């Protein structure tokens, strides 16, 4: 079974579709990151941990840092997303999650072409990403 004719990989429709959605997701994440980090640096949003105090805590292990700065784990940062430093996690979450839309978009695309194996592979990766993000696998909650 050969689902793709021998053509340059970049001209394949699935790759094009995936690339387009991934590109947009990446740009969105990067823009969010730049805006939130600028707001953080120029103190437009008050930080959870003042920047001047960071050198005293950025050498600590993550667990000790969280205890000392009373920063929540898991998705707890969302409640504090108006703080300059934690607002950056919005852009970081967008970047870590921007592969999801192209993967999900490819599932019906592959199913329509009776390429069930690749629909299952895409669904599998999307599931791993969702479970990791939810904190179910990672004990973040």
């Amino acid at each position: 079974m050969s689902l793709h004719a021998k053509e340059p990989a970049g001209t394949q429709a699935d790759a094009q579709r995936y690339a387009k959605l991934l590109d947009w997701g990446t740009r969105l994440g990067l823009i969010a990151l730049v805006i939130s980090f600028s707001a953080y640096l120029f103190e437009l949003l008050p930080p959870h941990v003042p920047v001047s105090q960071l050198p005293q805590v950025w050498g600590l292990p993550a667990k000790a840092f969280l205890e000392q700065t009373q920063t929540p784990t898991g998705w707890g940062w969302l409640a504090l997303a108006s703080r300059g430093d934690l607002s950056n996690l919005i852009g970081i979450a967008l970047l870590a999650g921007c592969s999801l839309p192209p993967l999900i978009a490819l599932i019906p695309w592959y199913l329509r072409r009776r390429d069930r194996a690749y629909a299952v592979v895409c669904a599998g990766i999307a599931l791993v990403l969702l479970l990791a993000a939810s904190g179910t696998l990672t004990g973040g909650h």
Partner: protein
Amino acid sequence: MLECRSSMTDLSGLRRKWRLAMLLFAMVFCMPAMAAGSAVPGSTLPWWFWPMALFVTCFLIGIVAVPAGIGGGTLFVPIIGGFFPFHLDFVRGAGLLVALASALAAAPMLLRSGLSSLRLALPLALLASISSVAGALLGLALPASLIQTALGLIVLGIVALMLMAKKSEFPVVERPDRLSSALGIHGVFIDGASGKTIDWQVHRTPVGLVLFLAIGVMAGMFGIGAGWANVPALNLLMGVPLKVSAGTSGLVLSLVDSSAAWVYINRGAVLPMVAVPSVVGMMLGARIGARLLHVLKGAVIRKMVITLLLFAGIRALLKGLGVWV
């Protein structure tokens, strides 16, 4: 003839720019190294020095990492972990995000140009994503000195691998295996350096899948991405042309590192002041690196990356063992 001369001039111009970039890299790389002695609480350096040095260092790492096909995290973790004052937990968290950002920045362009194969990447990424989550959980549970020592050994192992392993620009695959045939994993790409159109297919896919399970664990545990292992596995084991291996490796990394990065985010091991300057610098650098992938010779890229990794690996090992803290 004129076209040939023009392309030669373009190429030598690019090489000059490349050498200049490497010189800048060396200068910036030395800056935090020299300052490392005062990178302890009570340092006389202002707080903003470190994020700024991070940004410039990552921009240059981004340029180097994509054409080398090793992922930005492979260079980032030993260099930043060795010469910057941040705890290794935050460096690994940022390292995964850096590797992810580098891969995300390059993946759309590589997919469109045919240097990255979606059909090859997806099955490998499924297994590696699962194991990368396990690796990240394990990495955050182990002591930092143990991780630092193991990181140094792995980085030196990567150097040995790069020095000893033969690379094949266009491996010959006589017959594809059954699994790759069933999945339709094959393709054609046009090599920008030689102008040749290359047909490729793969073999030993089941072994490749098992290998990517192990690669995922290391990527998650050390936060170093896994391009250094992806490229030889794809090129030498599965018979994928070198440039397609490098391009596809980036796509696999974008999925594997996303899964592992969530573990670090959920465990609070992502510090924006470390992660954001690194990510932004790497993404900007990676866009330039992806453009250079078409025109640079593999041997030139390898030599520069081996030198950088050797230095960073020795530093990580000595720091982990408490010899050079």
